[in-house]
């Protein structure tokens, strides 16, 4: 009885997620993409530093275009193309070590500094990853957001595995390589965090002594 109910529920759920993108796409009036781009160009006429630092921010790249066109739920063929394209962007540490210092990881997880127009001229302070804005990570930090899933005990429930460590590195570097049209920023690919910082964030998730795993 329960199994039937679950099966029916699951079928209903799958039907809903299959139907939703089509419905949204139908509801949306078509707007000429060139008009949208022109409006954006005109709306942001001043930059705090050289224009070349800012104009690339105004336009979605191919992956973002595909995600927006599909309400972030791409059909399989598009999703596969996105994953292949984004996977190819991932750069790994030259020494092959993926785990850095979890204490530095905790600091960058707390920080939202960097790349905002008030963060210029550049100062001697690293960008943050702002992980807590969207994720629960530790029991001690009660001020966490809920846009992303809870990452409590992330390494522990994965037995601190080697393949899982690599997956965590890749996920932080470029989430679209494994989850096309994720809402999470491409922190490595978009040069928000350095490779060293990503290693520190991996340590926060995957080190047995990190507060995430206590």
């Amino acid at each position: 009885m329960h199994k039937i109910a679950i099966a029916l529920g699951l079928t209903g759920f799958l039907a809903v997620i299959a139907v939703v993108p089509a419905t949204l796409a139908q509801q949306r009036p078509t707007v000429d993409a060139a008009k949208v781009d022109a409006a954006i160009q005109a709306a942001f006429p001043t930059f705090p530093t050289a224009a070349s630092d800012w104009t690339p921010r105004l336009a979605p790249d191919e992956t973002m275009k595909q995600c927006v066109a599909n309400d972030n739920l791409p059909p399989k063929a598009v999703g596969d193309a996105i994953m292949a394209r984004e996977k190819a962007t991932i750069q790994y540490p030259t020494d092959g070590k993926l785990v850095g210092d979890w204490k530095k990881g905790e600091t960058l997880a707390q920080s939202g500094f960097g790349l905002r127009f008030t963060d210029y001229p550049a100062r001697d302070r690293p960008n943050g990853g702002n992980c807590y804005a969207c994720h629960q990570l530790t029991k001690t930090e009660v001020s966490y957001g809920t846009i992303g899933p809870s990452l409590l005990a992330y390494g522990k429930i994965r037995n601190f595995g080697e393949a899982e460590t690599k997956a965590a590195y890749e996920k932080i570097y470029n989430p679209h390589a494994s989850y096309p049209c994720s809402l999470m920023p491409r922190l490595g690919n978009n040069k928000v965090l350095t490779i060293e910082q990503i290693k520190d964030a991996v340590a926060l998730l995957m080190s047995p002594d990190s507060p995430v795993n206590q």
Partner: protein
Amino acid sequence: MELKRTLVAVLLVIGLSPVAMAQDLDTEKAIERYRQMLKADPWSNPGLLDVDRGETLWATPRGPKNVSLEQCDLGKGPGKVDGAFAELPRYFADADRVMDVETRILWCMEKLQGFNRADLIKSPHPSGGQPVKELGAMATYVANKSSGMKFAAKLDQPKERETVALGQALFNRRSGPFDFACTTCHAETGKRIRLQGLPFLSNPEEARKVIGEWPAYRVSSTHVMTMQHRLVDCFWQMRMPPLELGSDVSVALIAYLAKTAEGGEINAPALKR
């Protein structure tokens, strides 16, 4: 007296806790108490000082042409302020474009009073602790004159529909180093950034509850923040450059939000975190 003491206590808590993780919950409770007290005494909202200031500015002869804005047409005829905000944004034939309240006041300041537009949009929003600027104070006054009414912008003319459609496209558009769109934070019910609740703004039911609160007095920055300013803040967080006041992007997003919030009650200036 009791009100004053609690108000000071609330502001102290907020001012003295820079990160204030665990205290945020207490702060939220304190602000909730503050909100309750405001309801009990509607004249205690600090934003109302800017409503009064805006009303005076509106009626005072100013600018190179030394005239007041009492001939400014907000859509219901020159000088008619009551209920005008509830029907904005709308298309204005004299400017041949759709305008929200701030863009329209900007236009009137330029055309009627002779102010230089470039000067007005150079630094149009206050930093933390500074009062809302003159244009914003007047927008707060105009919005307040529709308080208690419902959003009823028709937005059914071709240019208006085009503007709403542009707003919707912009709401979904992802770009910048964080790949954010408005939908990153505002496309689901019950989500939070840190402890801050996020309204699902493409959902009419949720939009109707919050859009009518702007312009709002923001306790954390101790000033009235207008809707144009609020959008600048969103784009700041999205790692985009400063959004120009009165730009088509700003008007389109406001038109999309007003359309989504159609039928929702206006309660401006409300009090926000």
